[in-house]
């Protein structure tokens, strides 16, 4: 019961913040709203007994990725003119309507389905120990590949933004 109350509180916060992300004119406002949305979703992760993922969501998403985005927003320091006005074109509005229609259909489909209450929780479900055991035994190769992907992303970002010598700057 208390879980359901908390779920609805955090779900409302998440949806409101998400709406603010896509409607705010200033990217700084959207970034802060996105941080709030990610934190609310992290709380819902914890309610679903995904403790490790809730922690990682706060550390990696709300921490590292959002700091990176905020850093770039401050670095670019856009003037109001460069932010650009919001021009509405027919294509974009049609796209938004199509997305809305698809989402409505999906929601109808999901709510029609009867979800059996999940079977009783095993002790240790979603803890660091349990997730780590599965990650380092069954999914070791994908884990290593993901670390390679991160390395490639770091090198790619550095190479992309590096200024060449004699670049005319």
């Amino acid at each position, binding site marked *: 019961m208390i*879980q359901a109350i908390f*779920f609805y509180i955090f*779900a409302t916060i*998440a*949806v409101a913040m*998400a709406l603010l992300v*896509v409607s705010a004119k200033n*990217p700084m406002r*959207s970034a802060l709203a*996105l941080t709030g*949305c*990610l934190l609310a*979703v992290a709380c*819902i*992760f914890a309610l*679903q*007994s*995904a403790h490790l*993922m809730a922690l*990682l*969501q706060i550390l*990696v*998403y709300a921490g590292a*990725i959002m700091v*990176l*985005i905020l850093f*770039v927003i401050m*670095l*670019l320091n*856009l003037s109001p003119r*460069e932010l*650009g006005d919001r*021009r*509405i074109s027919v294509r974009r*509005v049609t*796209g*938004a309507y199509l*997305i*809305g229609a*698809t*989402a409505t259909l999906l929601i109808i489909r*999901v*709510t029609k389905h009867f*979800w059996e209450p*999940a079977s009783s929780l*095993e002790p240790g*479900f*979603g803890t660091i120990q349990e*997730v780590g055991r*599965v*990650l380092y035994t*069954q*999914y070791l190769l994908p884990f290593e590949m*993901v670390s390679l*992907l991160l390395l*490639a*992303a770091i090198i790619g*970002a550095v190479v*992309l*933004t590096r200024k060449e010598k004699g670049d005319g700057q």
Partner: protein
Amino acid sequence: MTGETLVLSILLFGIGAAGFVVRRNAIIVLMSVELMLNAANLAFIAFSRQHMDVTGHIYVFMIMTVAAAEAAVALAIVVLIFRARRAVNLDEINLMKG
């Protein structure tokens, strides 16, 4: 609880996708993508709880890593484009006539 979480996931994904289509500021478009990835994570967590299987958590872990890599490279590209053209408006970035 699974049904409600899935509805929340669909709502967040829809908002993110609409932002991706409607907004033209490159940084806000990127943040919409993060919102969509996050909605997918939420669905994975909900199904993981429903079926009592930790595999969903592993998927979330992988998606988070990919999101971090994507954010790093995409933001580098945004900085590059801003340096070259003094604009982050995607309508003005049309060299490739896409």
